[in-house]
């Protein structure tokens, strides 16, 4: 007697708990509950995976070697400045490979000066080789490692900032292995824009235009976007050593033609984006959106010096190798403010400001994987799949009720409890449901049906052999349960191995499988037997099975 009560209470509490845990997964129901109830429950339930909700998944690889190169370039620039301050003259310093600097210098005393400077101010460089004509310095191995490691962390941070500003609900940004980053943005409405936002290296540079060279006059005033390569090829060989050709990409006012404007630019970077402190969108003189930047104090000072020294000349604002604008410097600009004007839409200006604010990526990102699922597909899959499964599921339940009569209805309730329990567990764990996850659910439901069939067929067999009802039920359960446990455990082993060693979708499958099996076992061992025991107390003459 007690055993029946105890088990019944256990069953009902599990059912109620599962229902309670599941509520947050159904926003419509959740929202209509009174405030105090909402406080107790968690606010997130089961989340839908990308394949069901739509969204983006990106796997990016941080090009660590480039990060090292960029760091060495920065050191090179500082070295050149320091040497100039000291009035020590050397040949042009070059970076060779990712980690080496080659300094052409022949006189012994100049070499000594350089060597002292580097030892004092650049401790992360180690002398590699000294000859009559050159000195070679290489970045220490430990420093290279440090740069690579910090590159990834910095990339993660920067991407997080950019996505934060974008306002995506529940983004997933994770480090994957050594140098990869996995990003998931479920439910995002404008995938292209988000991808562009994430991947902009956002290397901001200010360079001066070369307005002296006659080559400048030979450049066409505009070319079609696709002809950029041709221009580079055509003029490449005749470029003076310190110049390069960069393009400004614009679209015509009507928005139908996109073309590029070539500029002859001095390679030397006069100011970099790391002095940027803030960037905002404001309205320009003609009510068009412009991006206003403000520099930190060091940057403000340098900017003032540069503008003072170059009045009347043109300075190019370059982002990721593309010219954004090339205004004429009309006066010395103090106060560290500058504006980027272009033919932006407000949206483009906003995105640019976000990217500038969040900072530059320490190195370029290479896309390894790019999955975009449009919201319509997700909806389609869910609707069709769920509708069919529900109808088919109903058919199964009806079949069970018809074939096994009252016992079939008991089985139906057990299957219902399985589903409810699974729903509760997944919601409680804030799991993400994907298509493979649904596969796992289908398998466990199937196994649940099978368990009941096993039991009932066994009971029927016992009855056929003439056993009295009570013994038939007990015997049937006992024998069938052994089989049920064996079958479920073997599947659990498979599920467990898949969970530990599988990745991504396979892991999702394994999670629903393992959870489902656990719940199945619980229902099979505790659940249906209770009902039969209750019936049995009334000393039945006939069993409806």
């Amino acid at each position, binding site marked *: 007697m007690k055993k029946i009560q105890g088990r019944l209470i256990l069953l009902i509490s599990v059912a109620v708990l599962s229902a309670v845990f599941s509520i947050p997964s159904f926003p419509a129901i959740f929202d209509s509950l009174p405030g105090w109830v909402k406080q107790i429950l968690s606010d997130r339930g089961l989340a839908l995976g990308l*394949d069901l909700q739509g969204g983006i998944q990106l*796997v990016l690889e941080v090009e660590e070697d480039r990060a090292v190169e960029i760091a060495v370039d920065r050191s090179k620039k500082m070295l050149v400045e320091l040497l100039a301050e000291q009035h020590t003259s050397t040949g042009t310093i070059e970076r060779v490979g990712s980690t080496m600097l080659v300094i052409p210098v022949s006189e012994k005393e100049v070499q000594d000066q350089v060597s002292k400077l580097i030892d004092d101010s650049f401790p992360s460089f180690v002398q590699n080789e000294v000859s009559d004509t050159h000195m070679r310095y290489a970045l220490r191995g430990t420093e290279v490692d440090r740069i690579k490691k910090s590159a990834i962390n910095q990339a993660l941070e920067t991407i997080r900032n950019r996505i934060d500003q974008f306002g995506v609900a529940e983004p997933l940004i994770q480090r994957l292995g050594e140098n990869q980053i996995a990003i998931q943005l479920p439910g995002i409405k404008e995938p292209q824009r988000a991808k562009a936002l994430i991947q902009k290296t956002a290397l901001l540079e200010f360079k001066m235009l070369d307005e002296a060279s006659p080559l400048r006059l030979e450049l066409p005033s505009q070319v079609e976007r696709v002809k950029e390569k041709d221009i580079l090829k055509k003029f490449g060989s005749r470029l003076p050593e310190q110049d390069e050709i960069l393009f400004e990409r614009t679209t015509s006012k009507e928005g139908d033609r996109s073309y590029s404007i070539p500029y002859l630019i001095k390679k030397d970077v006069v100011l970099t984006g790391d002095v940027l402190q803030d960037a905002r969108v404001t309205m320009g003189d003609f009510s068009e959106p412009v991006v206003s930047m403000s520099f930190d104090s060091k940057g403000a000072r340098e900017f003032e010096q540069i503008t003072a020294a170059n009045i009347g000349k043109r300075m190019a604002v370059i982002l990721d190798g593309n010219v954004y604008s090339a205004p004429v410097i009309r006066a010395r600009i103090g106060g560290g403010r500058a504006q980027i004007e272009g033919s932006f839409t407000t949206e483009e200006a906003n995105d640019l400001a976000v990217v500038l604010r969040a900072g530059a990526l320490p190195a370029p990102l290479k*896309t*390894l*994987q*790019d*999955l*975009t*699922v*449009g919201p*319509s*597909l997700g909806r*389609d*899959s869910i609707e*069709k*799949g769920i509708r*069919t499964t529900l*109808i*088919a*599921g109903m*058919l*199964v339940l009806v*079949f069970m009720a018809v*074939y096994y009569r009252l016992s079939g209805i008991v089985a139906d309730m057990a299957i219902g409890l399985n589903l409810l329990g699974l729903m509760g567990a997944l919601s409680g764990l804030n799991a993400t449901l994907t*298509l*493979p996850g649904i*596969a796992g659910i*289908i398998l466990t439901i*199937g*196994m649940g*049906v*099978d368990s009941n*069939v*096993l039991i009932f*067929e066994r009971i*029927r*067999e016992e009855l056929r052999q003439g056993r009295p009802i009570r013994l038939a039920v007990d015997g049937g359960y006992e*024998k069938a349960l*052994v*089989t049920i446990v*064996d*079958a*479920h*455990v*073997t*599947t659990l*082993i*498979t*599920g467990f*191995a*898949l969970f530990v*060693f*599988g*990745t*991504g*979708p*396979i892991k999702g*499958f394994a999670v629903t*499988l393992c959870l489902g099996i656990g719940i199945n076992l619980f229902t099979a061992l505790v659940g249906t037997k209770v009902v039969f025991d209750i019936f049995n107390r009334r000393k039945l003459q006939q069993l409806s*099975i």
Partner: protein
Amino acid sequence: MIEIIGKTHVDFMGKRKMAFVLSGILVLLGLFSMIQIVRGSANLGIDFSGGTAVQLKFDKAFSIERARETLSAHGLPDAELQEFTQDHKLLVRVKTSTTIEEEIAEKIVDLFQKEFSDYQIVVDSSMSIGPTIGHKLQQDALIAITLSLIGVILYIATRFEFRFGVAAAIATFHDVLAVLGLYYVMDKEITLLVVTALLTLAGYSLTDTVVVFDRIRENLRQRRRDTVTTIINNGINQVLSRTLITTATTMLVLIPLTLFGGEVIHDFSLALLLGVIVGTYSSVFVASPLLMLWPGAEGRLLRRG
């Protein structure tokens, strides 16, 4: 009680030679397709081979020929096209390893929006996968599958006997290979979802085999006079009604899902459907005869007298 079948006395073991032939063919097919996959000449989805797949939804019927011509004319003659006529959807697949750098996904979308401007086109999904990730995925999947098979053999060997464990593992492996081989023959794309389906059906087949084995074990412990063949036959016959009902209920869900469940799930549910049929077949005609075929001394369970 409604009974679909009563007591049966089918001689399953007597038919095992024929079954071995059929199974042999299926397994060889499966092994062949595995070799083709490793060599890269099977129809692998881009999850494994790398590449780009773009699915577009048109608002009305379109000509797939026109699509093919458009793609060829713009440098993509090798693109694979698949049409879903009932929903006016087109799946374009390009399987080369440089598709991400070349921004092929964007190119395809732009191309169709320009050339098919008389239609409203929506991008259902776009996938671009680099080659390294696909390779890693393959490896991870294989490791997971191998380890789970080993785990299963160990468990069943402990609960029953070693030969039962091996027989069950072989039967399950047979089922996965069979469906894989069938998919290869039907030239269906093998994606991660299909692999998940194969894993699901492995689980199902294993359960089925365990049920049969369980009954055989129970009979072996009781009837000491009959031959092993008779005991196995009886065992299978006794669970036959359960097997039929379970298979029927599973089909009741899988058949509509395959026919009406939408194109994303289609390949998945078809694999499961085939797997259920093969899985039931293998528990009877592969796993059980293998028990009898085990060389060497009869184990504790099977020892007579």
